């Protein structure tokens, strides 16, 4: 494999990997906060993509301009899911672990059905926007601009999450994560923190969805394929670790890109899964998970 080609594959893996990382970051944040795996996480991303598609179709607005709108929208959706379903799932007396898995799973099926109801089953795409079909040439390595923009936004979102963790709210978040019962004693409203956590997690995956809509098809099942990668990313990086999500996302993007290039494109995910299982054999709680 010539050097230029290696660089091209590596760049492609990095660009995709950063998207995976941001999708996983939202999942990891919610898990770390309250030990809940959101099996509807991919569907939240799909909702964000459809929101972009719908507003673009209606107004012709560029997806990039819609970024803040959709992020806020998803923040609200995340909070509503927490208040409506998750708070209830956490308060049950039996099989709590199982109830939360299947409540979020049922929600995923519901959202998929709702998307099909509103937009139909066919694939849609957002075309003709500002960055569409343009690419950057870095010494022979071609980088499609929509993906470059997506990666930059993902990095910025990570920086944003890091900044939030430095604020008063971030400290409350961390304290709630450490001991969800003790925080009540120092006047932290746990329920509010959890709801905000869901808002942030959904907002993060919403941002990923907006950027993805710039170069990827939109369909009712688009979330499902990204969700499996997101679970793997979170488990590989370690549940609850933001740095873990970032490193694991990029690693997975690279493994996927090189498996596709060197072996067989249709088996690219097998390479990812094999690396994941290998790492978990040595580190059962992921690369950055607390042992």
């Amino acid at each position, binding site marked *: 494999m010539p050097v230029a080609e290696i660089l091209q594959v590596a760049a492609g893996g990095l660009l995709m990997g950063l998207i995976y990382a941001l999708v996983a970051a939202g999942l990891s944040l919610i*898990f770390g906060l309250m*030990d809940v*795996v959101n099996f509807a996480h991919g569907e939240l991303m799909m909702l964000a993509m459809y929101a972009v598609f719908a507003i673009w179709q209606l107004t012709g607005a560029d997806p990039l301009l819609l970024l803040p709108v959709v992020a806020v929208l998803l923040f609200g959706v995340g909070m509503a899911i927490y208040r409506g*379903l998750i708070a*209830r*799932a956490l308060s*049950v*007396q*039996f*099989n*709590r*672990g*199982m*109830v939360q*898995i*299947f*409540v979020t*799973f*049922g*929600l*995923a*099926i*519901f*959202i*998929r*059905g*709702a*998307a*099909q*109801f509103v937009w*139909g*089953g066919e694939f849609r795409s957002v075309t003709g926007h500002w960055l569409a079909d343009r690419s950057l040439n870095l010494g022979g390595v071609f980088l499609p601009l929509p993906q470059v923009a997506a990666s930059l936004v993902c990095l910025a979102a990570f920086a944003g999450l890091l900044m939030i963790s430095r604020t008063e709210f971030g400290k409350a978040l961390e304290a709630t994560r450490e001991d969800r019962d003790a925080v009540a004693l120092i006047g932290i409203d746990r329920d509010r923190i959890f709801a905000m956590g869901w808002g942030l997690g959904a907002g993060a995956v919403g941002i990923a969805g907006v950027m993805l809509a710039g170069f990827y098809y939109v369909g*009712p099942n688009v979330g*499902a394929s990204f969700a*499996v990668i997101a*679970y*793997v990313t*979170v*488990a590989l990086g370690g*549940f609850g670790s933001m740095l873990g999500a970032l490193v694991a996302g990029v690693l997975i993007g690279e493994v996927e890109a090189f498996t596709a290039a060197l072996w*067989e494109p*249709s*088996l690219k*995910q*097998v390479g990812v*899964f*094999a690396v*994941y*299982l290998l790492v*978990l*054999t040595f580190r*059962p*709680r*992921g690369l950055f998970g607390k042992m």
Partner: protein
Amino acid sequence: MDNAILRRRKREVLGGVIVLAALALLPLPIKDVYTQNLIIITVLFAGLAQAWNILGGYCGQISLGHALYFGVGGYVSTLLYLKAGLPPSLGLFAAFGVSGMLALLVGWPCFRLSGHYYAIATVVVGEIGYLLFLNWDFVGGATGVFIPFHGESWAQLQFKTAKLPYHYVVLAFAAATWLTAFLLEGSRWGFAWRAVKDDVTAARSLGVNIFSSKMAAAALSGGFTGMGGAIYAQYVGYIDPDSVLAGHFSILIALPAVLGGVSTLWGPLIGAAVLMPASELSRSYLGGSGRGVDLMLYGGLIVIGALARPQGLVSLFGRKDDHARIA
């Protein structure tokens, strides 16, 4: 064992015999093929969910990758029939063996993981199986395998239009899983598994070997799931990775047990009796439009069921002392 437990177990055997007899008679007056099919699928999934319950319920290891055992079971019996001429009635047992072994192979790395790490690892292993079969030409790849019809025969488990023989095959299968769960509940193994589920540290201090307990539960659970897959393949006459190995099958197998009541004898059957008709009816009456109303109803039902009855629908029946046990 004290008398209360013994009495309860006697009651359950009696209940088992009555339900078995009722299910054996149920299809006799029914002439309509659609309803016959619905009953067969319901009973099959009651058996599959009970198989899942052995690992996911009694042993508490929430597997979200049982589609792998189901699909592999279907492929094993089908390929043995097509390539080696082994009658599917024997292929069922080969499917049990291969899927059971596969569950051990999967369990060996995955049982080192706990909680959500385990659940996600099982999702991944299932996906790997799906992708490999999709790209494996020997097993038909994405196009799948047809089972040609060679005339009616119990050995081949092929019946032209009659549904009744299949009904008795799935009923025997579901009864076998029920009996296994019943025997486990009263055995040393069953107690060890429930200890593993409730408190790993305490179980270890009592001398329970955690790893081999999980492996034994996985082998039984995977084996029965594979057998169910083999029966399903023979029933529909055609399998491809999307119809037997896709990830949503894992959820389909687990759901009746979860909604009906995990680690209970009757939960999987009750769950299947509610879920399968609900999903089938909503699909045939509302799914045709392709507008996703069936999915919304089905998803909504899962959410509401899990929230309203976290201990399972089985808690609507039975006596108070049984509830205490479920908790």
